[in-house]
């Protein structure tokens, strides 16, 4: 495949900040709006336009919503070939748009879908792609500074892409704030441009035989999270009840998810979600770097662990040495009692 850019390209030919609006069956993934809000900041700093890229089947409403949420323009590739998502048609459409329109910065959600197709787009474009960034900024020259955790979150690397364009980055859900939802304004549609669809069904390399998606829980919005790990030993009832009493969500370590005690959508960490609640209660969790990476942004962290030397205590505001099967129910009872008194 041809390299669209690389050493020798004129980086000045590339401008604007693009945000990929990930959607499934017409519903936007929350990370899309988080990136749009961040993209707005970056575009304001570089003095460029913010462009939303909407790909799907019957998704004009999302292009209009993107404009209402702050995009200067939206590009819409609307065709049945784009539903459900597949890497090769999305990759090919995106490549064609990047080659023709030369964006400077492209932000994509670090979801399974976003990570599946970002790597595919970056190759033919010969673009720099920085994975799972947790900070994005631009320097004096308008170069993107993309910072990302490495070694399971124990180090931060800042990555630049001086001679190639676009500068692409994926960002996990929950890292940035989405800003306020917005209803499309009357003239939002004027800022939406339908683009030529360059892929045909007969050229695709794959067929989706079946797709089963339940109601997907989103723990990234929760103000309170009660997370459990291997220490739950198969019984997560104490987590569920405390979360209920506090009006929060249950989350888990990879260990608890692998055991099947908690669903994968609730995993926090390097290969799970990034959360920043006001209160994070870590029960029966040792505090591995890959877990800490996903919850270090929490305001207040509480650790409950039988082992007084568990590393999690070093990363917690309040720690209590004890069996979570005793501590959590006692705490739940106390919370409920005070709530009743208050009511």
């Amino acid at each position: 495949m041809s390299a669209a850019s690389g050493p020798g390209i004129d980086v000045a030919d590339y401008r604007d900040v693009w945000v990929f609006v990930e959607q499934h069956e017409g519903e936007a993934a929350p990370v899309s709006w988080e990136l749009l809000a961040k993209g707005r900041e970056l575009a304001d700093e570089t003095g460029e336009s913010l462009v939303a890229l909407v790909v799907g089947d019957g998704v004009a409403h999302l292009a209009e919503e993107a404009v209402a949420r702050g995009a200067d323009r939206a590009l819409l590739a609307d065709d049945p070939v784009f539903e459900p998502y597949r890497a090769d048609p999305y990759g090919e459409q995106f490549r064609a748009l990047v080659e023709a329109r030369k964006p400077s910065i492209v932000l994509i959600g670090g979801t399974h879908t976003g990570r599946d197709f970002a790597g595919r787009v970056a190759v033919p474009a010969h673009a720099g792609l920085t994975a799972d960034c947790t900070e994005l900024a631009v320097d004096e020259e308008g170069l993107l500074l993309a910072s990302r955790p490495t070694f399971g979150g124990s180090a931060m690397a800042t990555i630049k892409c001086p001679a190639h364009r676009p500068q692409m980055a994926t960002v996990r859900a929950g890292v940035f704030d989405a800003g306020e939802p917005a209803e499309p304004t009357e003239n939002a549609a004027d800022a939406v441009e339908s683009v030529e669809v360059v892929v045909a069904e007969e050229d695709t390399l794959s067929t989706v035989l079946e797709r089963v998606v339940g109601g997907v829980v989103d723990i990234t919005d929760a103000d309170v999270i009660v997370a459990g790990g291997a220490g739950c030993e198969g019984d997560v009832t104490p987590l569920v009840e405390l979360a209920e009493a506090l009006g929060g969500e249950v989350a888990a370590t990879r260990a608890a998810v692998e055991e099947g005690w908690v669903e994968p959508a609730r995993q926090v960490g390097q290969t799970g979600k990034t959360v920043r609640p006001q209160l994070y209660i870590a029960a029966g969790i040792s505090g591995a770097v890959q877990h800490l990476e996903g919850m270090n942004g929490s305001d207040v962290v509480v650790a409950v662990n039988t082992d007084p030397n568990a590393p999690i205590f070093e990363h917690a505001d309040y720690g209590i040495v004890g069996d979570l099967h005793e501590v959590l129910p006692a705490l739940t009872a106390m919370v409920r009692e005070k709530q009743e008194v208050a009511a």
Partner: protein
Amino acid sequence: MNDGWNIVVCVKQVPDADDVTIDPDTGTLNRSDAPAVLNKPDHNAVESALALRDAVGGTVTAVTMGPPPASAVLQAAVAAGADGGVLLTDRAFGGSDTWPTSLALARAAEELDADVVICGEESTDSSTGQVPPGIAAHNGWAQLTYTESLDPRPDEGVLVGTRDVEGGYERVATALPVVVAMVFGANDPRPAGLHRKIFAETEFEPVQWTAADLGIEDRVGLVNSPTKVGGMDTASPVERERTRVDSVEALYDHLAEVL
């Protein structure tokens, strides 16, 4: 019928993740001279490759790109049951980001006439997960990332993968050749058999290819890598109170301030 598939499994050598911890006071890496090991998620890739060979016949060839000591991960794959191993090693590869890394692996897969390339979900050191889609893109092949299980249909020349799509799953049928990235923990890797292990340690010699052998000497390395690591910082430690409480009442009182 067919005489089996050429299965290529990509394995990476990384510092042992279990030995990497953070010092909470300084935020520095405690790596305790972490030994180099086979990237944990790649154990799942190797197992899938062997299971696929069990199902359709053919061969499993392990490939790694890295300095000569990286051949240790090929040895591990051969001990587990891979038929052979290829080491892509050359000074020219130095400083490669995911673009040239996936190019080298893509060219090797082409050289090996691969029907299926199997990778891990991501590496434990730089963990981009970009290499598998990159291999597929360089070769214009199909891809299946976040794959939980594989269902080969050799008579149709099709591989069906079940993918984790966050909140559910999908089953996708792809034409061959295809690049697969297995979900970390998707299967239970088989233990290495004693005979294979002895063979891997005493007789196995990896095939070695340079960038020139692959015809990509001008397209790899630092100069052909779009991304540059501008700076490395130890993650700044988050300031925490680290207060021990000795009763649930005391804990509740602290929480009442937050809630």
